[in-house]
């Protein structure tokens, strides 16, 4: 367990004071519901861009990506280089004109404008439930983590962090969340950069790391480069630790899951909607793409270093702990390395970075929740004539009960872990087909509301059906799949099963939406102006300096990500 010195507490405490201070300072400029939910559409592109990145950078992401780095090696970068960059480029160049241009205040509201009420309702309700639930789950994870590394009590960790996030969002709304996300971004970089530097020096640079990881790979029965090549061993699921093959990876992760998340999840899209102009909104995901593609250095590399040191020690012994079931506890990679390399002072900074990443993830969920709740549930179904004052009040109230529900979820997770796994599974089914609906909705004007809704529902059912009829590895029928009785296919790993569940869901939604659309009446062209590609004027790029043009930025981002894939092939 780590022992903190006075200086570590001083840094952590100062951080909390600053976070609250930002909320207090923004209180006066939060007067209308647009200020509270959309930052008055006044955020500069670089700020929105870093917030876009940071909202997704919860503690689970940081801890989890390091864990995957240890477990699967550099192939984890696929979650960044093909699992994020192309989708971020796509949403910036092609989709933002409709999100921002339609003046929709949320992603469900866009669905209302483009399709109909039931499609919006389906999306709004599932999304609102999911955000509350996921912030509860990450709170639970944080409570366990702080208990394990610092010996803090579960309740103290949860209540302190929840109270701080609550206070700053309550005061300053989305602006407060965005400002703190940017602060958190810099803290995460500041806390993890020296850790990677020290770790890399200890293992003997990239060359030393490759040699050590070759040993790790051989111990697990793989080719020497299995931990340090990202594509070379993807020919067959048996030759890489992820247990996936290139097609499932490229289609499942690179296309369906990645585009589904980065282009339709209101948690990230909201940051771009808050930007101060159309051009800034389009640049938001593109600005985020550049730090995003370098983040594997900060979050995946530490995991690779941790497993390399566990296989063969550096200057002083370092071992990942073993769990009760005999497997290594990969989640401890970053926390243990902080304790291993950082003296008092830097340790405080490192922990502040972890707390920051936790809070940015939670604030992302909370601000997305209070907006969807207020605009798409409260204003849509409960109080249709709500005044702006009502909406602002409801925004603050829903921040309070959203966080309260998350805290309850966190406590529930300590007792009913299976129910939590089940809920997460259901949300995965609901999310999988979403991108097909948006793609058709934005680029094919013939798509109808009935088509979208029936497509979504059948995509979700297809996901459930596929999961219920397949099993990963040696798992038994139950939460891992196969619960429909018959098992039609065994996947080599859970990840492969996830990717293919997504592929089936997406394809079903895509086909059904098209078929039903042909059988139903589309909206008139006049109603779809600004919502569909063929009926919307292209945003002009002529007046913008070349390096600020979304198209240019997108090409550079994709080219850079191709280079990274090639270098670490």
């Amino acid at each position, binding site marked *: 367990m780590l022992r903190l010195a006075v200086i570590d507490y001083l*840094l952590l405490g100062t951080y909390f004071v*600053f976070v609250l201070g930002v909320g207090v300072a923004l209180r006066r400029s939060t007067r209308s519901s647009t200020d509270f939910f959309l930052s008055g559409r006044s955020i500069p592109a670089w700020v929105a861009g870093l917030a876009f990145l940071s909202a997704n950078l919860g503690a689970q992401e940081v801890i989890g990506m390091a864990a995957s780095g240890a477990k699967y090696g550099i192939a984890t970068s696929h979650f960044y280089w093909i699992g994020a960059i192309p989708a971020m480029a796509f949403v910036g160049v092609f989709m933002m004109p409709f999100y921002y241009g339609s003046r929709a205040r949320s992603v469900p509201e866009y669905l209302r404008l483009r399709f109909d009420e039931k499609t919006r309702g389906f999306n709004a309700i599932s999304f609102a439930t999911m955000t509350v639930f996921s912030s509860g789950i990450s709170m639970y994870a944080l409570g366990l983590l702080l208990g394990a590394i610092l010996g803090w009590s579960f309740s103290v960790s949860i209540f302190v962090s929840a109270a701080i996030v609550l206070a700053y969002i309550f005061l300053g709304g989305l602006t407060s969340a965005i400002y703190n996300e*940017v602060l958190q971004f*810099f803290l995460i970089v500041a806390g993890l950069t020296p850790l990677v530097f*020290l770790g890399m020096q200890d293992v003997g640079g990239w060359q030393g790391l490759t040699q050590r990881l070759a040993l790790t790979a051989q111990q697990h029965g793989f080719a020497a480069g299995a931990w340090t090549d990202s594509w070379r061993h993807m020919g067959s699921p048996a030759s890489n630790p992820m247990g996936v093959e290139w097609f499932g990876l490229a289609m499942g992760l690179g296309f369906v899951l990645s585009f589904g998340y980065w282009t339709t999840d209101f948690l990230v899209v909201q940051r771009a909607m808050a930007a101060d102009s159309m051009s800034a909104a389009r640049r938001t995901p593109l600005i985020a793409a550049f730090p995003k593609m370098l983040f594997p250095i900060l979050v995946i590399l530490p995991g690779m270093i941790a497993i390399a040191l566990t296989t063969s020690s550096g200057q002083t012994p370092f071992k990942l702990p073993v769990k009760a079931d005999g497997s290594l506890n990969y989640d401890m990679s970053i926390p243990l390395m902080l304790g291993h390399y950082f*003296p008092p002072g*830097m340790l405080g*900074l490192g922990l502040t970075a972890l707390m920051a990443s936790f809070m940015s993830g939670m604030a992302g969920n909370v601000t997305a929740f209070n907006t969807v709740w207020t605009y798409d549930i409260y204003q849509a179904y409960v109080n249709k004539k709500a005044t702006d004052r009502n909406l602002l009040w409801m925004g603050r109230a829903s921040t309070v009960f959203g966080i309260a529900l998350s805290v309850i979820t966190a406590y529930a997770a300590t007792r009913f872990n299976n129910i939590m796994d089940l809920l997460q599974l259901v949300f995965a089914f609901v999310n999988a087909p979403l991108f097909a609906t948006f793609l058709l909705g934005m680029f094919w004007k013939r798509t109808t509301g009935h088509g979208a809704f029936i497509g979504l529902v059948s995509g979700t059912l297809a996901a459930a059906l596929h999961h219920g009829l397949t099993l990963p590895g040696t798992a038994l029928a139950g939460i891992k799949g196969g619960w429909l009785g018959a098992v039609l296919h065994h996947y080599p790993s859970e990840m492969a099963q996830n990717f293919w569940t997504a592929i089936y869901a997406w394809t079903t939604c895509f086909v059904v939406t098209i078929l039903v659309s042909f059988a139903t009446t589309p909206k008139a062209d006049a109603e779809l102006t600004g919502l569909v590609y063929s009926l919307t004027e292209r945003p002009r790029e002529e007046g913008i300096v070349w390096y600020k043009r979304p198209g240019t930025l997108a090409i550079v981002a994709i080219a850079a990500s191709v280079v990274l894939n090639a270098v670490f092939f």
Partner: protein
Amino acid sequence: MLDVRLPIGLLFTFFGAVLALYGAVSDGTVYARSLGHNVNLWWGLVMLVFGLVFIYLARRKNRLRT
């Protein structure tokens, strides 16, 4: 509205100054674990410079406006 660079600049300046000062006065033996590097001092100075640059940028923009 508050310029986001101001709180970031202030926090990094404070963190940097505290870490650098602590690094300058602390007993060298604690740096065995950081492979002999006085990370508090060096990283503290980096953070300090970053913080000051951000404060400068935030204040310059303010002055341009008024």
